[in-house]
């Protein structure tokens, strides 16, 4: 709005936009008005009445105090927030609010950071005139994350509005009336939305608190430390609350360009994994099958000797994509210093045919904050709510604003907004994209030209094409984690690029992990050197590393049976290798099997570092707590290793120096998703049209080693190992809901319960990856067969 008006608050002249609420202007000016129900990101309810102020307009006083959160400003408005009349109104409201509020602050988790407590200090009386009985409200079980003490609820309805407006699930409501009004689901069921934890921050009192944190600390014992979330590609800004060297809980920091004021439950509750029992705390070496604790110097000297002695062409470095930029850069330097280019962070990718054409600095394709302004968004192979909870929220904002959200996926997503979804097998997804490209009159070259030429677009494909075209450039085609895991990722990528170009919209990637983008800049890629410079020769990507039995392997921050696309092959490769060194924050059973040396490194919050998010923003953070036991921040371990290997330039004083060195190399790098060569994608599609294909989506709370170790998140539904089939598919195979089945994928096998699910494409079986039970299986997307097990088996009895 251009025409600003002037209003006066407490005698101060303030600039305001017509139609703005008084409280928004006051907040901007730093004038404090007490409030409970108002929240800048939610609709206005004006039901707590705490924000009453005295006002007059054009010389005419309002007859009674007005709520500042629901009174729009106008020319000539004068407001008094602390006049006797305003204070009297605020005091009276406070007295009413306290009538039914229990006096249990000493045993309330919110004590010390309670908005009601704070405001009562300012406005409350010291003696209660209310001598009648206070009401008591029964608590509801909202699941493993949110604790309830509903007697404390003051009915501000922030939680209800959050669930309806931000999460998009109308699960909470205010039932009953007057004294009997209560907030709840009415029919007790757990609130399972992936952003639901935000109601803990929103609740001004102690009615909704964090279950895992409950009764463990008091706010005045905590020290706040800024950090960046280590899970999805967004890099939400966090405030870690630390006591005596332990992260006690995690809150969001506001950043409009990244996470607004929210964080996902994954970012909020994963810290619990830091305090688990299975942390790796001392360096260890396996000697004759026995694990022995050793000194750091011994461990590192041993590792240096072995790596130096190994043939660099037969060495491979696998790095977790949520390692810090500094760790990735130093690891890449060491690997290349030893003459080894077999280095990769793309652990959940199996098709590397496009490596020569892939962009050097791939990203979302647009700043995160621009997502809500798109008119059309095409998601390809993305279980978006599981993969990127807050980007899903941005996309939902776009949809509510009228954007069309289109999906091409092997399963139907539960999106809390309008969407058009094409659901088909992984093999058909390629054909679907070709058909959409054809409907856009795109040609392509090589294999793509054949694919596009051979396709016959249906109405659904044409509709998608038209919607994208009608977005007038305000659209984006996004590739998700399921696309990345696809055996024909190179084709999906090329087709998506062709579609975006023909429709005149942007093209982007949904980076699966906190530093997927940064890993390209750090050179943790067989075809890319630090600074996003192309390597002269492309060496082995992870797929090839497993095919060619390597003799030495370095694993950084990952569990080979969970974090790699093909768990069975990864474990086999580790077993074949003569020397495997695993740097890990956790003492995982798979590492004990796979590795010969275990080096304890600091996890999230225990090291300083930098993540580059989906939007290409570099976000640095400091360590908040010390790593446990002998564990050391990863970059320091690499610094020592570099020196032991006699590599030059490993004299960094701190991680900032590492970052600056890399930043200088990246001076020229700009995010760009255009393929580097126009060279046609080679090779036919690799995926069978017939038979059953596994889709191994990674559940939200199984993404990486840290989040898998958060006990509260592990209790959330959706992470159990199972097989999900469309009813028609099950009928065709003669299987029924509840059956116990054996999954055979190549030579790998596993057993699981079968569930019928109409959301899954026929020809596809949803069998999650990265969860307990999936370790024995092969690629996340690949051909499988199912067979019913008649007798009950050990697994099914457990399940």
């Amino acid at each position: 709005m251009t025409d600003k008006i002037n209003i006066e608050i407490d005698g101060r002249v303030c600039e305001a936009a017509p139609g703005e609420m008084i409280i928004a202007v006051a907040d901007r000016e730093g004038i404090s008005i007490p409030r409970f129900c108002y929240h800048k990101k939610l609709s206005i309810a004006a039901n707590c009445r705490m924000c009453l102020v005295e006002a007059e307009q054009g010389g005419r006083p309002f007859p009674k105090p007005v709520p500042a959160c629901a009174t729009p400003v106008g020319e000539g408005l004068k407001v008094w927030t602390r006049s006797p009349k305003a204070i009297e109104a605020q005091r009276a409201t406070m007295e009413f609010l306290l009538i039914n509020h229990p006096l249990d602050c000493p045993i309330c988790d919110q004590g010390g950071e309670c908005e009601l407590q704070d405001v009562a200090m300012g406005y409350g009386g010291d003696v209660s005139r209310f001598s009648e009985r206070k009401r008591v409200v029964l608590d509801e079980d909202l699941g493993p994350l949110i604790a309830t003490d509903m007697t404390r609820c003051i009915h501000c309805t922030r939680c209800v509005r959050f669930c309806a407006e931000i999460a998009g699930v109308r699960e909470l409501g205010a039932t009953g009336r007057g004294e009997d009004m209560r907030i709840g689901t009415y029919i007790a069921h757990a609130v399972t939305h992936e952003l639901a934890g935000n109601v803990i921050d929103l609740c001004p009192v102690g009615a909704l608190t964090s279950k895992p944190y409950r009764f463990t600390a008091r706010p005045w014992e905590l020290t706040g430390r800024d950090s960046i979330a280590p899970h999805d590609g967004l890099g939400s800004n966090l405030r870690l609350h630390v006591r005596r060297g332990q992260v006690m809980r995690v809150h969001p920091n506001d950043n409009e360009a990244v996470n607004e004021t929210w964080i996902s439950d994954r970012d909020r509750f994963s810290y619990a994994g830091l305090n688990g029992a299975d942390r790796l705390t001392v360096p260890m070496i396996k000697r004759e099958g026995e694990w022995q604790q050793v000194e750091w110097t011994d461990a590192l000297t041993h590792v240096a000797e072995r790596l130096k002695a190994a043939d660099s062409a037969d060495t491979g470095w696998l790095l977790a994509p949520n390692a810090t930029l500094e760790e990735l850069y130093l690891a890449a330097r060491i690997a290349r210093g030893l003459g080894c280019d077999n280095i990769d962070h793309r652990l959940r990718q199996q098709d590397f045919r496009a490596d020569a054409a892939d962009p050097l600095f791939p990203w979302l394709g647009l700043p995160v904050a621009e997502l809500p302004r798109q008119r059309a968004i095409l998601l390809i192979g993305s279980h978006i709510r599981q993969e990127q909870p807050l980007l899903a929220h941005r996309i939902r904002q776009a949809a509510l604003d009228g954007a069309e959200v289109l999906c091409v996926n092997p399963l139907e997503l539960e999106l809390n907004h309008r969407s058009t979804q094409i659901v088909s097998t992984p093999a058909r997804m390629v054909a679907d994209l070709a058909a959409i490209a054809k409907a856009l009159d795109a040609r392509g070259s090589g294999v793509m030209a054949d694919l596009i030429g051979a396709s016959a677009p249906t109405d659904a494909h044409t509709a998608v094409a038209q919607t994208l075209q009608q977005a007038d450039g305000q659209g984006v085609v996004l590739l998700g984690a399921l696309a990345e895991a696809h055996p024909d990722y190179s084709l999906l990528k090329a087709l998506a690029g062709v579609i975006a170009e023909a429709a005149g919209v942007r093209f982007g990637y949904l980076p699966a992990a906190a530093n997927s983008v940064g890993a390209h800049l750090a050179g943790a890629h067989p075809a890319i050197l630090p600074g996003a410079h192309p390597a002269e020769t492309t060496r082995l990507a992870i797929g090839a590393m497993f095919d060619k039995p390597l003799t030495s392997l370095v694993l950084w921050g990952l569990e080979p049976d969970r974090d790699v696309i093909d768990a069975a092959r990864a474990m086999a490769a580790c077993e074949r290798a003569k020397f495997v060194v695993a740097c890990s924050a956790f003492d995982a059973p798979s590492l004990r099997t796979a590795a010969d040396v275990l080096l304890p490194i600091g996890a999230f919050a225990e090291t300083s570092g930098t993540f580059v998010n989906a939007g290409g923003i570099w976000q640095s953070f400091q360590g908040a707590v010390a790593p446990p036991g002998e564990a050391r921040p990863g970059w320091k371990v690499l610094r020592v290793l570099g020196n032991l290997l006699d590599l030059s330039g490993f004299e960094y004083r701190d991680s900032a120096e590492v970052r600056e060195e890399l930043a200088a190399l990246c001076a020229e790098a700009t995010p760009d998703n255009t393929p580097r060569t126009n060279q046609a994608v080679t090779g036919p599609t690799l995926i069978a049209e017939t038979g059953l294909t596994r889709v191994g989506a990674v559940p939200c709370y199984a993404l990486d080693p840290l989040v898998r170790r958060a006990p509260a998140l592990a209790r959330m539904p959706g992470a159990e190992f199972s097989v999900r089939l469309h009813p028609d598919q099950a009928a065709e195979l003669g299987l029924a809901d509840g059956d116990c089945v054996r999954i055979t994928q190549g030579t790998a096998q596993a057993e699981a319960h079968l569930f019928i699910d109409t959301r899954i494409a026929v020809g596809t079986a949803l069998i999650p990856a990265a969860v307990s039970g999936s370790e024995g299986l092969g690629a996340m997307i690949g051909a499988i067969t199912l067979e019913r097990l008649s007798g009950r088996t050990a697994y099914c009895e457990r399940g």
Partner: protein
Amino acid sequence: MSFRNAPQAVAHDVNKADLFTPEIRTAIDAHIAKYPPEWKQSAVMPALSILQDAHGGWLTTDLMNDLAAYLDMPAVSVYEVATFYGMYDLEPQGRHKVCICNSISCMLNGSEVLIEHVEHKYGVKVGETTADGRFTLKEVECLGACRDAPAVMLNKVYHEKLTPEALDTLIDGLE
């Protein structure tokens, strides 16, 4: 409460033709027709009354869920409406409802005497049903008949300026 961007319509995975009886559907449809198509949920109150009348005077969670599906609205919104208004009952009721107003005018004019009288004579407390299932005693908020307080609503009919004896006669007339 009005939400800034709450989903106005929520599609439920049911076949609407399987819900309720054809008569009930026709009756509800008549109310739906009074509102713009995207404001179907405005019919929630009359629809709840229709369902309650057809179900012995009370509503079950299943009925409310079905109505939510029928009106494309979130189930919790139906619960909010049904729990807010005194005319909806969520527990089994007697064959009749004796609803005694106990708001200010009626209270000043003796409604408490009426309530006590019924409680003693028929052995029911407010909210309870007589042992023979004949009626449920309800205490309700202002019926809007203050001029002739105290007022009692017997099922759907108002009776005003009542004395305990007059109320007895009315109750005696109930099957």
